[in-house]
């Protein structure tokens, strides 16, 4: 019976998509966590005698315009990209869960006001909100985290609210009310646990988008400030020598693309695994 509950995890990892994506993501996370030990050179060590060198045995991914090792900067940049997007999405998910649950469960004027505010943020492209917020707060990682968190808040609030509204009408919730349960018990013991799975899958997919948004802001010079590497900032500095040293822009670009693709594939695999489970439940 335990095995049945663990089934989605197994199914996710057993699928081709899921296993490849999981392997890549694991590699990325390990790289980001152990960056200072894994990178062959310090990420900010300049050596102007070896500027813009193509990949070689000493510098596996070449060097940039200051002679810094691109591989080291890529690994350290993974730290920035992952921590910023994961922190931002976590903040967004947490606020979205709370706001959505309260709105969906209690409804009323509070719900209407919050929904208008949330829909307002939804009517702008994410990048526009992010640019606006960073312009107000000033460039830096805190600004980027906040901007991404607000840009995706609408999605999680709406998702939670809709799910809570549907679940609220379920017979098992009425049964719990009839047992004499209060709002807190119903929200925390029944509604939120049932909302969590779809929200977490949505969060996984949004993390991919957040990485792109972080890279975009970094590219505009609004994210991590030099010398802290981030994939977006690396690409930005690489544009200048696009034709002399294309690896400086292409490699971080590839890192962004691969990470987003694999995050989406992993999300897809989880969704597929969860669908199988709902089928099992109906059978």
């Amino acid at each position: 019976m335990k095995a049945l509950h663990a089934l989605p995890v197994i199914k996710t990892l057993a699928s081709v998509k899921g296993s490849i994506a999981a392997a890549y993501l694991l590699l990325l996370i390990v790289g980001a966590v152990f960056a200072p030990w894994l990178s062959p050179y310090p990420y900010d060590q300049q050596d102007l005698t070896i500027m813009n060198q193509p990949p070689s045995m000493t510098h596996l991914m070449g060097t940039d315009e200051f002679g810094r090792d691109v591989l080291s900067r890529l690994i350290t940049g993974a730290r920035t990209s992952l921590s910023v997007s994961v922190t931002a999405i976590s903040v967004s998910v947490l606020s979205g869960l709370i706001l959505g649950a309260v709105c969906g469960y209690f409804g009323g004027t509070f719900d209407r006001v919050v929904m208008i505010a949330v829909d307002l943020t939804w009517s702008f492209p994410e990048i526009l909100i992010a640019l606006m917020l960073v312009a107000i707060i000033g460039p830096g990682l805190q600004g980027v985290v906040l901007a991404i968190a607000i840009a995706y808040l609408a999605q999680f609030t709406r998702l939670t609210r809709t799910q809570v509204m549907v679940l609220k009408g379920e017979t098992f919730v009425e049964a719990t009310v009839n047992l004499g349960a209060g709002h807190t018990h119903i929200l925390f013991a029944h509604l939120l646990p049932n909302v969590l799975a779809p929200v977490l899958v949505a969060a996984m997919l949004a993390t991919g988008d957040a990485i792109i948004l972080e890279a975009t802001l970094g590219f505009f010079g609004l994210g991590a400030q030099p010398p802290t590497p981030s994939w977006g900032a690396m690409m930005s500095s690489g544009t200048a020598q696009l034709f002399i040293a294309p690896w400086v822009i292409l490699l971080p670009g590839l890192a962004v693309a691969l990470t987003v693709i694999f995050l989406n594939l992993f999300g897809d695999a989880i969704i597929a695994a969860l669908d199988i489970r709902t089928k099992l439940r109906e059978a």
Partner: protein
Amino acid sequence: MSDLLSVDHLSRRFTNAGLFQKRQVFHAVSDVSFTLARGQILGVVGESGCGKSTLARLILRLIQPSEGSVWFDGIDMASLSRADLRRLRQRMQLVFQDPYSAIDPRYRVRDALLEPFKVQGVKLKSADATVASLLEMVGLNPALTHSYPHQLSGGQKQRIGIARALALNPSLVVLDEPTASLDVSVQAQIIALLNRLRESLGLTYLFISHDLGLVRYFCDKILVMYLGRIVEIMPSDALPAHPYTRALLDSTFEPDPRQRRTIARLSGEIPSGYNPPPGCAFAARCPRVSGLCRTTLPPLQPLTDRHQAACHHPLAGEARPETVQQIDTRLSAVP
């Protein structure tokens, strides 16, 4: 004998207030009064949409009445504070029509059965022993303790629903069509289980159903509803006086083909609860209708001391006396 439950002129209207729609009022339950004595089984019968389930939820105060009052064991439910109402809920429980959605899909049997104690803040000496005794009480294998709802059959889930309702040792159990979504053989088992539990635990049942045959077999007293109103209150062995009850009785399924009769089927539909007719709601479908029925609402009038009907032209002694006996033999044949 004191009445456990007393319902007094209970009404509930729902207002449909869309942004661009005309405000509409739906009369779900209108002017319902009855009493239920301790240890009795009261059956509530009627077609879908006649307000049976709304009545159940009004009695349990899961929804608020528009008018009227419910007295439970001498307590006016409306007078209770939120906290007192939550505490009183353990004495009145509900078993649901759809066992498939009545248990949280993430809850194991054990969690579902322990939830009542958790909610009411009851400390248990041994949670395992409590779960085991509850499962045994409803005739389930204790091995199911760690199962998820999706691993159980409909009948098993309904037994879990009953066990959960009885966990806090209630006085009144409202059964909202507890057998409607189950197979016929499982239905009979659940009815037998409910009967046994009532005897051993001294429960009082309010049994909601659309099957008049089943209600006549199972209940002491029958309350027939039509479009939110009571049309007849009668002892279960009495012959129906209201033409609607008679039509319901005629429509009960007869397993023996030689015993089948040509049924005078009702034509037409129930009038809308948004716009109830001024007279008797059944007038449009009634074979005994007169002009009076269309203009004047018939009040619930006593025919004998235990029998009341809301009809201008009640039937007298025209039912088939063999019916009850037949249902009795049909149902008692099942263990």
